């Protein structure tokens, strides 16, 4: 199968993820969208790895998964902490770092 199908699908999923990150206000959905983007990256990595005929891209994809897991742990932790302090679960209302 031609490599370009995989790449186009990967780009498609990545753009969906990016659009979700930019448009949604709930941190949970944003985390999900980031997950989409990471997996789009994984898809591209594995496709290229198969095309090149060696396993390096697959190893890289595994690492990305580990990173994604860590990120979810931390992100969910933050969201739970916010929930406990009765803060609004809304990224737009949290702009205390404004300069």
């Amino acid at each position: 199968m031609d490599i370009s199908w995989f790449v186009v699908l990967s780009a498609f999923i990545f753009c969906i993820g990016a659009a979700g990150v930019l448009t949604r206000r709930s941190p949970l959905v944003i985390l999900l969208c980031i997950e989409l983007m990471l997996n789009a990256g994984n898809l591209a990595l594995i496709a290229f790895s198969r095309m090149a005929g060696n396993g390096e891209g697959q190893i890289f994809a595994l690492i990305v998964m580990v990173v994604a897991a860590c990120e979810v742990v931390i992100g969910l932790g933050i969201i739970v902490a916010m929930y406990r302090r009765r803060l609004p679960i809304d990224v737009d209302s949290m702009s205390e770092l404004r300069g």
Partner: protein
Amino acid sequence: MSVAAWGWLVLLLPLAGTLAIALGYRFLPGRTAGAVGCAAIGLSFVSALGMLTALLDKPEESRTVVDSAYTYASTGGFSVDMAILVDPLSTLMCLVVSGVSFLIHIYSYAYMDGDRGFRRFFAYLNFFVFSMLLLVLASNFVLLIVGWAFVGAASYLLISFWYRRETATAAGIKAFVINVIGDVGLVIGAFLLFDGTGALDYATLFERSHEVFATNDAQLVAACLLLLVGAFAKSAQLPLHTWLPDAMEGPTPVSALIHAATMVTAGVYLIARMHPLFEQAPAAADVGAILGTATLFVAATIALVVTDLKRVIAYSTMSQIGYMILGVSAFAYSAGMFHLMTHAFFKALLFMGAGSVISAMSSEQSLDRMGGFRKAMPFTYVMFTIGALALAAFPLTSGFFSKDEILAYTLNRGGGYVILAIVGYVAALLTAFYAFRMVFRVFHGEPCHEARELASGHQVHGDPVNPATGEPEDTEVGFPGPEHHVAEQSQAMQIAMVPLAILALVAGVLQIPGVTDAVETFLEPTFADSQFAHTHPSDSSEYLGLLLGGAISLAGIGAAAFLYLRRPGMTKWMSERYSGVHDFLANRWYFDELFALTIVRPFAAAGRFGRTVIESAFIQGVLVDGTVGVVRAGSSFARGIQTGELRAYAGLLLAGVTALLLYFLIAAS
């Protein structure tokens, strides 16, 4: 003890006094600071006497002693030693400086009693004497310049001693600035000499200058003229004289110290000390003689009309220093130094008398308000009159012999110097006149209120005011103290004045032409190498000069007596009749205005330009504010990006990555 040991003692005792008072003033109760100061200078004078006897024990040809304590700096083929030079010239100066200063210290002990700055005063006074002795005893240019600058600093401290009086601080600054002009001249002159000879100590420098420089060599003349700038600034000669009358803002003992013993005589000493150079550069010496003569005449004319008692004496100092400068520039060294010595006696005496009178007037200094103190202050009257007699060169007083000696030598030089001598004789007439103008206006005539009160045993203590402006003042620290001391009631002041009076009367016997000649014989070893010092005027011409001088002196005194005793209204009529001349003199030949126009105002304008244009507009406006503006604009832009909105950051990130990606794609294809 050896000569050099005595010399070091002379120098170090006043330094020890300064340090003891300055560092230990908390532990010196009451008047002990004054006692310490007097003792230090007194012992210094005793050491100077020891130095004299030790020097006289030596054979004449070995009476120049250089003693080095240690090498101060040694580099590239030349070295500067911390060394003193003791020879007859410096011994004479040490005797005069320490002796007269000692008496002034005793006088100050009583006069400054009651001033809140009593200890500070004595610390400064000792420092002043130390600086002057350092200047005199220096054996090389480095030490000389150090002493020279110390004297300037000490004079600043003392002139603005009453530092909360604005006129006093202004006068102190003026004196300091003009002295620094002189310092710069001296330093550059020393550089030029070092450039030519490669030495800074006197002996080597003089020796080599004969080999290196031809007579009237341009570099040597320039160096000597620069030395003259230094000498003239310190000795208040035209055109660097304007600080001296203003220096009267200091306490009266300070005026006595500056005028009689220290400071203003430094220029005369410098020329005498540098005589081998000036003899090799007669052009520079001529300039010195001409300016000295101009000063002695100008100052004498101004002294005729000034109404401030202390300023009259100040201008007389300028005039008398002019005589000394004329003397040493005309290579009549012993005559110039002799006049320096006698002048120290009678000028200190005059200032002490004036201080007593001013105390009796409770700080009022105007001659117009004084009068008739003869009955009320008999002691001061006698002392002041003796001083005035010596100043007027009344026959057989000390000033009579010393002034004539200078003029006789000047006449003997012939040529243009004859004109200078004639001007000197004319000024001698004026001197006699203004000296007795003071005496008659202060002590004779109708007694003023203060004189009547004092005669009835009660001294007037008026409200403290600044005599220069009439503004009321405190008697706090930084202002004159509340008490006034007159010599009639203070033994210490009398003790200080009597020896000076005796010396002012009889010191002339040291140098009666053809009879004693003690000063000249004593100074002979210092000036042995001089080509000119040995060409004496004949005794007969000197005696003729004495006769002429005596007649001039009597004429001047007689004219003053006629105008102020016989026809008291006459001077007022004259000043109105010839108001142009009077105003010209009363405004001091407009020297201050001339300097204000030519120097002070351009400098002030340049300063204003620097402040408004360079400092405010360029440095502050462009450099400092410009940098601030750039940083501020950049930071406010960077701050604008930091919205705190998570999605905005994500959008920016995405946009940035996309832009980079596009760039690389385009660049790659």
